[in-house]
């Protein structure tokens, strides 16, 4: 096995991954690598299974075929206990934040520490405040999740995701539905956390501009396949029409504006 050594430069390697939901093929023989210490983006239009890919990497879903190695371990061959040990080293930021709604910000960030360590409460307090300070929300510790704005909720979730000092963080659509200021804050945070904590980041997104600004490497997915990959600059100069349409946000191109339908004129006249 080529990818078994943990000193390998790739923290995640996906090989020949296939996954379907019902009759729909979400991934068809996809292979990709995530390099250690880098920010890798996985982009594509909505509904291409980007979130599904994160769930596959995290072992919440099982692929139909192919393997996923994280830090040298085959995720879907692990026993439950080993999978949980591995997950302690993976942070995941859900689109909704997925904060526990019956706890305040402080307890949410303390949650993984309290579940997984036997640290005394005074040390947990210092750790929680450090993590909250890193995302700029030390002053919001007493708020409940329903009192937070969407951007703040995501930052709290980020503080929680780094609470156990993971090897890597997976961001699920971190920029969706953010105002420009919190978008800017998140872009800055992802970049600076990756550098200062020595993380590896995987960003799943369709926000081209923000993602291209911080990603070291980008994979573009469409209809279950990788249709383009490279550094942001390489992709901008890509000669694939599809990648061009996606990166520039053109309404029509290889991906049609219209959902497949019968001929327009026939359709209109059909009722008469």
């Amino acid at each position, binding site marked *: 096995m080529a990818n078994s050594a943990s000193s390998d430069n790739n923290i995640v390697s996906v090989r020949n991954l296939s996954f379907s939901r019902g009759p729909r093929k979400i991934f068809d023989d996809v292979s990709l690598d995530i390099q250690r210490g880098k920010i890798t983006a996985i982009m594509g239009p909505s509904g291409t299974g980007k979130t599904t890919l994160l*769930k596959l990497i*995290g072992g*919440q879903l099982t692929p139909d075929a192919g393997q996923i190695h994280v830090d040298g371990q085959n995720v879907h061959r692990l026993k439950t206990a080993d999978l*949980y*040990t591995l*997950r*302690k080293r*993976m*942070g*995941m930021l*859900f*689109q*909704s934040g*997925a*904060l*526990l*709604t019956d706890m305040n910000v402080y307890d949410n960030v303390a*949650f*993984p520490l309290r*579940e*997984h360590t036997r640290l005394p409460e005074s040390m947990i307090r210092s750790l929680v405040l450090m993590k909250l300070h890193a995302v700029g929300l030390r002053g919001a510790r007493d708020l409940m999740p329903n009192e937070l704005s969407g951007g703040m909720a995501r930052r709290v*979730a980020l503080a*929680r995701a780094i609470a*156990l000092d993971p090897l890597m963080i997976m961001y699920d659509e971190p920029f969706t539905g953010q105002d420009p200021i919190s978008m800017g804050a998140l872009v800055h945070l992802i970049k600076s956390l990756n550098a200062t904590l020595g993380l590896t980041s995987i960003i799943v997104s369709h926000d081209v501009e923000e993602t291209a600004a911080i990603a070291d490497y980008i994979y573009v997915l469409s209809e279950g396949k990788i249709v383009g990959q490279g550094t942001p600059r390489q992709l901008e100069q890509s000669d694939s029409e599809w990648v061009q349409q996606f990166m520039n946000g053109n309404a029509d191109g290889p991906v049609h504006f219209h959902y497949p339908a019968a001929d327009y004129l026939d359709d209109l006249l059909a009722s008469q």
Partner: protein
Amino acid sequence: MLEFLENLGKTTRSSFAKLGRGTFFLAHTLTGIGDVLPRPNLLLKQMYSVGVLSFLIITISGLFVGMVLGLQGFNILSDFGAEESLGVMVAASLVRELGPVVSALLFAGRAGSALTAEIGLMKATEQLSGMEMMAVDPIKRIISPRFLAGFISMPLLASLFSAIGVMGGYLVGVGMLGVDDGAFWSQMQANIDFQEDIINGVIKSVVFGFVVSWIALFEGYDAIPTSEGVSRATTRTVVNSAFSILGLDFILTALMFGDI
């Protein structure tokens, strides 16, 4: 006809699949109980929301059910000149049947539906999934404490219901209708058997507590994570719990009191 058979087959298959998922879920929940015991705070918090918050509805319903029993019982018993037996009648019907059954039905409506909605919404807002990604088993952390809380609360609430109900019967029978005070209590003491009546009633409520908690938590966990899915799951909790309570009550009564 063929379509009917096809649908029948599909429904049967999906119900069996659900039963299977429910059984695995239960097994997983039960193994998690070992992890709850060292953390009594988790349990106490759930005991509060499942048990203590059901207190009011249980006491008020118990009081009125007891009062109605007192009235109706008096009307019938006085025809036979046996109104001194009112205490026995009220206590026996409450302890054997009405206490466990009515409080379980109320419990399913009050606490069961709340559990389903809570778990369903936690699923819909990815809180369960998020917990899994933090390497915390949501069944052990979220479901098991709630299950245990429901299981413990139910017999306590049913006993409370019966006790308050007896007081209600006393209020109406002795206070309003003039049944002899001493006869009311002494007949009750003489004829209600601890083993036969009270323990059997408690066993019933233990079974109901187990089943209602299981149904409520599983429906929430198995809900389709949308607002419509959660609302349907909540309805199913109340309906399925009611059916299970009444069906099981018949079976348990037959086993305990009937010579079948």
